[in-house]
């Protein structure tokens, strides 16, 4: 079977992903810069501020809000330690109570809060999260640098989770073998695959596990 050639910024089949978080990933990041082919200027450096909604019980749905838009991805499968996530829902604020009741809160896997309005602004939604004992809204600021190594889309980023800094590095592709080779090329072999949801839950103390270094 001919493999699909990945192009940055274009829609592809669902991708597999290796991502990890730590305090010192600079050596792998350096290798990434040297092994990368030129990439479009729009992905050279990107910054964003997002809000992730996390709960102790949920490890399979990743909810983030950026620029007033909500995006939930759901875990599909793991193959050779690589994770595949698919979009579950996308919505924009103000958001209807029906969507919150039928799609958003079920994704958090927590008790449904009372929803007595027809629609909710972002501020009203965040107030519900703040008052929910099982949910946490986490501010995540990102400075990301895009690369392309071994036909996989790669990124090194600095991420501030509620103001505290961690580094992240990833490789994603529709092709599992390409990611596995990239991991070795970057010197990341043996490191744990840690997704955003896991990293945020570890830093905020919801999960008692360390990052990779």
């Amino acid at each position, binding site marked *: 079977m001919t493999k699909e050639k990945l192009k940055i910024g274009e829609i592809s089949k669902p991708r597999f992903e290796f991502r990890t978080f730590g305090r010192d990933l600079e050596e792998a990041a350096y290798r990434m810069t040297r092994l990368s082919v030129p990439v479009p200027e729009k992905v050279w450096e990107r910054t964003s501020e997002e809000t992730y909604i996390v709960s102790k019980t949920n490890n399979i749905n990743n909810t983030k809000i950026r620029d007033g838009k909500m995006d939930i991805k759901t875990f599909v499968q793991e193959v050779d330690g690589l994770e595949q996530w698919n979009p579950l829902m996308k919505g924009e604020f103000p958001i209807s109570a029906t969507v919150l009741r039928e799609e958003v809160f079920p994704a958090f896997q927590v008790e449904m809060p009372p929803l007595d309005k027809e629609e909710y602004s972002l501020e009203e939604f965040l107030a519900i999260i703040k008052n929910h004992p099982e949910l946490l809204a986490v501010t995540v600021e990102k400075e990301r640098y895009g690369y392309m190594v071994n036909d996989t889309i790669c990124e090194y980023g600095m991420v501030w989770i509620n103001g*505290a800094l961690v580094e992240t590095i990833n490789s994603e592709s529709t092709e599992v073998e390409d990611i596995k080779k990239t991991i070795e090329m970057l010197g990341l072999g043996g490191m744990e695959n840690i997704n955003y949801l896991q990293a945020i839950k*570890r830093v905020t103390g919801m999960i008692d596990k*360390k990052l990779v270094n």
Partner: protein
Amino acid sequence: MIASVIPRYEFRIFGNALSKIEEKIMALSPREKTRQMDSVYLLTPFKRRNNVKIREGIMDIKVLEQEHAGLQQWNPFLVGEFPLEADVIKTVVFPALGVESPVFEREKYTLSQFIAEVITIDPDLAVAYVWKTRHAYTVADCITEVAEIKVNGATIKTICIESEDAGKVLEAKKLLGIGSNVENVSYPLALKRIMGLTSLPESWNNIDF
């Protein structure tokens, strides 16, 4: 056990862009000492006047005695060394945390047993593992510290000025150009913000992209 320590006044800030203040500290004082240490902080979402932590197997609690001119006066006392008796955990540690004490199944707890069997199963309690590299300086006769810390693996810096004499802390603040608009943030408050146990104020360590 009560240690005979005179409570110090403290002014502390956290952030990732503190280099201007660091440069001033280094211009005023040589680096006197660097120490590395791990601490485990016990936190709750509730407002408390206690800072509960475990360092090198010893639990100590600092109590916020008073706030004066934007400074905080913390009074430390040692609780004891692990293994810690359940009775001490019940009568000293849990009241300091402001959380109802559970039923204890052991007479004594090692640190790992305490974390795994007492703390992590309590929905009102959270643990922050904090690794610190602390650099000591002296500014205006005050113990002045610049520290790189990792909170559950994420990094942030902190600068602290402390002295038994509140006036000296205010003088050091002035020398370092720290105005009255800069918020005094204690360790428990910073950790609670990072861990999402309390809301982030607008001014909290905004990243200047």
